């Protein structure tokens, strides 16, 4: 039964996208959104119906496999297309379809005036389909198809307004290209890791491959893990491949919320949790992952401090939070990484959608021109505030418990990791309240923008309030000492050793104080003492400059890689392609043409000639057999 429902999970978005492609858009503009949202909503209901069975069965056999069909069979390589439903994949499925449904509904309101509305929903449904394939696949190959599918959806949706161009993003189509190319670097890691797993254990099925690899020596495991880490860095925007995510904000805001905050970018975290056996056996790779995670979290948080565009703040914040998740997976707290993934999906989607509501009303996201929006957009302001509180980690909202769990295990692992994570938490609280204050509090700074501000419609606000409720209550999924989610996931990602209660309480208090302190600091600074802000900025001038220049990583890529590859492409295009390949092809064509000009003389159209050649042929045949026999 479970198996068939899992197939329905995939069939529904597929049906939605086919309906919209071939039928829906002919009838009415609004129908496309209804079909797409309905498909995802139904998938969510199915996932909920499956939940009791999957979460209820503990132990080794918590997962259920549904073979769909034999996909590839080449010699020993057999790739059946099969789905694996276990607590881990179901958790992801619930997030993807649940948050996805809310964002679909939101998009019906947000995108209502767009000329390419039907196409937008086709892409969104395609994304949901690929993402579900990614999390439900039972082998690396199936995961990889989904992995590439979401990459394609991301590319299409970032460049959805491919004809637009502005100062902040440049050409929107280029932003999509950048995301695609950078992701491709990560994908190479995944392909190589898959090849290595295949040559080592001869199977790519998760269960079998992980069992086989568990008995291997450490060296190949470290290599596999590092290659997987490259894939994670690409998809989940970690150092040094995070550069694509800020530019991905060129896409419509629902896309930023769904793909570049809540779901797709967390695919890397899912991959780490799915392969947790390897990471536990390769402590060196885990340590590297943890350091990359915490480093990314800190660097991205500093960059979020200096952004002036609201969505860019949220983009860097997403990178930073993904860094926390990688840190959590790196220190072995896979359950908490997934927990943070879930809560982050709630509150970051909420923040993005609130920012989208602002953009919908003002057509402006530059915080220097916004301000005082709480008066005219009270609902949006409140929702953004709830999201900010959760992101900052203020108890008892969802973000507090999940982030604190990660920091707790980081503390047990290495105090430096914990310290850096804590500093990042402080910076997080500051930057998000800076954003909140600049956007919603104070006085309107731009009369033109202020003149046409209005609260958004019901289709936009309803998803916001639902996400707010989830953000407030989401922490209940995995309260300290109760740990519902952790126990549910234990059969897949392993049990965690419970920490000393006194230590846990102490760290909880420290985290809460840091978060509240940071929020208070930002609040005070931006409310009254703008001069103070400037003086702080002057004190930390080198750091601010560093952050403003995106830590020079983009410049480095531009100089070292882009220009080189540009020159190489230029050379390949002019010298190799135009002068080499083109010439060879032209020569071949011209030679063939010359010869056929001569040969066609044989075909003179006179019957006797044809008959004669026929007789000669017959005579030759007879002669041949005469001699041969």
């Amino acid at each position, binding site marked *: 039964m479970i198996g068939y429902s899992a197939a329905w999970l995939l069939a529904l978005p597929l049906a939605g996208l086919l309906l919209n492609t071939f039928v829906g858009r002919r009838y009415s503009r609004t129908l496309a959104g209804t079909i797409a949202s309905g498909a995802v909503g139904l998938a969510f209901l199915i996932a909920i119906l499956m939940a009791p069975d999957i979460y209820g069965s503990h132990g080794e056999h918590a997962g259920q496999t549904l073979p769909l069909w034999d996909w590839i069979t080449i010699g020993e390589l057999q790739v059946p297309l099969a789905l694996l439903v276990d607590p881990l994949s179901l958790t992801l499925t619930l997030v993807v379809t649940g948050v996805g449904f809310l964002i679909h509904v939101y998009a019906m309101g947000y995108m209502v005036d767009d000329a390419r509305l039907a196409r937008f929903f086709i892409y969104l449904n395609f994304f949901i389909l690929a993402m579900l394939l990614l999390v439900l696949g039972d082998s690396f190959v199936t995961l990889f198809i989904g992995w590439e599918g979401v990459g394609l959806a991301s590319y299409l949706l970032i460049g959805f307004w491919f004809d637009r161009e502005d100062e902040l993003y440049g050409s929107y189509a280029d932003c999509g290209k950048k995301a695609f190319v950078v992701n491709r670097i990560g994908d190479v890691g995944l392909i190589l890791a898959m090849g290595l797993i295949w040559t080592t254990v001869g199977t790519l099925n998760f269960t079998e491959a992980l069992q086989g690899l568990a008995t291997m020596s450490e060296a190949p495991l470290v290599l596999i893990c590092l290659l997987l880490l490259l894939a994670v860095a690409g998809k989940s925007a970690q150092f040094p491949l995070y550069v694509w995510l800020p530019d991905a904000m060129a896409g419509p805001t629902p896309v930023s919320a769904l793909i570049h905050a809540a779901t797709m970018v967390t695919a890397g975290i899912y991959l780490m949790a799915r392969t947790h056996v390897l990471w536990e056996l390769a402590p060196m790779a885990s340590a590297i992952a943890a350091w990359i995670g915490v480093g990314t979290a800190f660097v991205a948080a500093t960059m979020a401090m200096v952004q002036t565009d609201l969505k860019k703040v949220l983009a860097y914040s997403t990178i930073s939070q993904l860094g926390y998740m990688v840190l959590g997976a790196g220190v072995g707290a896979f359950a908490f990484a997934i927990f943070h993934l879930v809560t982050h999906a709630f509150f970051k989607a909420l923040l993005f959608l609130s920012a989208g509501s602002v953009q919908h009303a003002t057509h402006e996201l530059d915080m220097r021109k916004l301000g005082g929006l709480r008066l005219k957009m009270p609902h949006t302001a409140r929702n953004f505030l709830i999201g900010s509180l959760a992101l900052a980690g203020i108890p008892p909202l969802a973000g507090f418990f999940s982030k604190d769990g990660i920091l707790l295990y980081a503390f047990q692992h290495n105090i430096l990791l914990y310290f850096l994570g804590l500093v990042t938490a402080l910076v997080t609280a500051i930057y998000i309240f800076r954003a909140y204050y600049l956007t919603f509090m104070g006085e309107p700074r731009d009369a033109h923008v202020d003149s046409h501000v209005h609260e958004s419609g019901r289709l936009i606000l309803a998803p916001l309030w639902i996400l707010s409720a989830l953000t407030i209550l989401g922490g209940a999924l995995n309260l300290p000492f109760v740990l519902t989610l952790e126990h549910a996931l234990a059969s897949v990602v392993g049990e965690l050793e419970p920490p000393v209660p006194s230590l846990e309480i102490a760290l909880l208090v420290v985290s809460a104080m840091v978060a509240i302190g940071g929020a208070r600091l930002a609040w005070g600074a931006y409310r009254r003492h703008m001069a103070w802000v400037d003086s702080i900025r002057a004190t930390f001038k080198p750091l601010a400059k560093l952050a403003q220049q995106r830590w020079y990583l983009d410049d480095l890529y531009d100089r070292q890689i882009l220009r080189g590859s540009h020159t190489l492409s230029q050379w390949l295009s002019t010298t190799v392609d135009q002068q080499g390949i083109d010439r060879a092809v032209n020569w071949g064509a011209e030679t063939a043409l010359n010869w056929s000009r001569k040969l*066609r*003389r044989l*075909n*003179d*159209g*006179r*019957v*006797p000639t044809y*008959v*004669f050649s026929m*007789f000669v042929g017959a005579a030759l045949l007879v002669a041949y057999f005469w001699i041969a026999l």
Partner: protein
Amino acid sequence: MMDTNLYLALSALIFTIGALGVLMRRNALIIFMCVEMMLNSVNLSLVALSHRWGNVDGQIFVFVIMAVAAAEVAIGLAILIANTRHSQSVNVDKIDLLRW
């Protein structure tokens, strides 16, 4: 024994006359008749050999060939008449519309 060889020799003679006629004559109608001669020379050798080996297969074969030849003549003559009406000539050298 001797009889059969004579039949085969006659058959070869008629075949050669037919083949040469096809190659050398220009009148389409004559060429057509020469083709029929070649067909019938083959029929002759089939019948002769059938008699020689006491096997009726060859004679059945001949009936099939005659039937097909009759059909072929009907089509061939139709084409010939159509072409003659078109070009006012039966000279095959002038039938070269299908050239390059």
